[in-house]
């Protein structure tokens, strides 16, 4: 019996070990960025999008729910943080908290409405809700419409760390990303994550085992929205503005693209996907409008040739769990 138990459980700790090694590698690589001469602004921006894509991936990759309105969390948290910092003059930590809490609240409300429907209907409701919000933000006075909220003060985090210093800001953003990433990692490997995966695999069966699947989907939705909000709040310190771009539906599409390119349902895929897409936007900027076309081609190529995404294909080839 003991031998059998060991055998049955071997798969899980080994997978966990692979993931911890890759996580360590990723953390070290990201930590040495300021000494490599890589433009830190680009990495910071990519980290915010990486967290956003990871949060989105928690919902679709592990809960099977395709949200087509995740930009609403990014944008809402961004506006609320920016407003709290600039108008209320709150400290950075409280500014981040305000934005993240706003996204959490939005997650409760929009989740409650949208998880009642399944498949494409769920996606359409999330899209509709995010469009609704987009037009509210377009009209609301505090967002300053097309101009957005500009010139946001960065301030001192906990009264100590000067966020106007590029290196300090970089490590603060990195810390925020790593915390969010670890929380997602833990959620996936928690008792809740097990139930969530079983709902993704066969919702009817999960119901027949006595699980009220709506409650689990709602919690996943709120967690995902909250972490997407954290990404939006962090992004305010990097971009020093909050604008309509972050609530636009095309942003929601970009989140889907990042996750698909990196590998849907893989832990590290969304991070890789976010870096690839942000790097393309950065380094192909001279092509102007053609960037969108190039992105489209990559998207088609991805779906046709490596469906599992970059990380998904690597994990499959080496039989790893990433």
């Amino acid at each position: 019996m003991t031998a059998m138990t060991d055998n049955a459980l071997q798969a899980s700790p080994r997978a966990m070990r692979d993931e911890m090694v890759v996580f360590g590698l990723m953390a070290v690589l990201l930590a040495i960025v300021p000494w490599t001469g890589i433009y830190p602004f680009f990495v910071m921006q990519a980290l915010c999008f990486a967290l956003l894509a990871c949060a989105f991936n928690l919902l679709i990759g592990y809960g099977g729910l395709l949200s087509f309105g995740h930009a609403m969390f990014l944008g809402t948290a961004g506006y609320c943080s920016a407003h709290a910092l600039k108008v209320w003059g709150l400290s950075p930590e409280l500014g981040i908290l305000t934005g993240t809490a706003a996204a959490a609240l939005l997650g409760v409300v929009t989740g409650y409405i949208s998880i009642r429907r399944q498949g494409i209907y769920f996606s359409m409701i999330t899209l509709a809700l995010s469009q609704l919000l987009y037009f509210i933000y377009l009209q609301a006075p505090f967002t300053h419409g097309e101009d957005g909220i500009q010139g946001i003060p960065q301030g001192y985090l906990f009264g100590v760390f000067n966020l106007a210093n590029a290196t300090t800001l970089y490590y603060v953003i990195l810390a925020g990303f790593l915390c969010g990433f670890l929380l997602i990692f833990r959620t996936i490997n928690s008792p809740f994550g097990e139930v969530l995966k079983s709902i993704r695999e066969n919702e009817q069966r999960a119901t027949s085992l006595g699980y009220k699947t709506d409650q689990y989907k709602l919690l996943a939705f709120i967690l995902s929205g909250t972490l997407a909000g954290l990404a939006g709040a962090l992004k305010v310190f990097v971009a020093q503005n909050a604008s309509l771009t972050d609530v636009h539906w095309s942003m929601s599409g970009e989140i889907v693209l990042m996750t698909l390119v990196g590998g849907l349902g893989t832990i590290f895929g969304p991070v890789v996907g976010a870096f690839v897409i942000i790097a393309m936007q950065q380094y192909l900027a001279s092509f102007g409008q053609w960037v969108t076309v190039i992105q489209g081609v990559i998207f088609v190529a991805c779906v046709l040739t490596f469906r599992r995404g970059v990380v998904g294909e690597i994990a499959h080839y080496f039989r790893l769990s990433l």
Partner: protein
Amino acid sequence: MADEFILETHGLTKEFAGFFAVRDVTLKVRRGSIHALIGPNGAGKTTCFNLLTKFLQPSAGRIFYKGQDITAVAPADVARLGLVRSFQISAVFPHLTALENVRVALQRQHGHSFDFWRSKSVLNRFNGRALELLNDVGLSEFAAVPAVEMPYGRKRALEIATTLALDPEMMLLDEPMAGMGHEDIDKIAALIKRISAKYTILMVEHNLSVVANLSDIITVLTRGQVLAEGHYAELSKDERVKEAYLGAGHA
């Protein structure tokens, strides 16, 4: 009355836009028995099943489980009352291992299911019980195998192990032998016979001969209505049953 019959329906009816899939079905399932619900294709067996487990809401009629009216209870709550169903197409969680499949069922009763901040290693305390259940259905060597890689007959056995993990009082099996070869049919039949010592079983089956030796009582459905009820020996001589299965010309 509630003691003798664990599950009863009165005038159970399901209408889909003028078509009666199930019409006025009154069913009494005796506690501790194996009760089979059989009938030709389209007789309303699966609809009846979905009504009993509340995956469909009846248009009319009432359902009583252990004397309690469950007509308006949600499907997840029906499962929590101890009335657990299986599905016609094998319902496992394909990318979870056999052990994890069973563990998901064990986990529900013992809490922690909303804990997203805790490591899933807290679930390891269910491993012993999960292995016992796998062992019971002859799947111990499959514990670490993802369900998707298991042969069909084994998946059905896994499904039964998962259902047993809930420690139900009554199991509803929807065509547990569908799509199986003879060898597997014998295995699953023996398994059902064995677990029936502890649980009441209501099973839907298309094939009369499969349930012949297995069931204590058989209800024959045709066109959504109860045609006959009794033991296999009586039913196999019943002209109406023959006619329902073979058509009037052969009767």
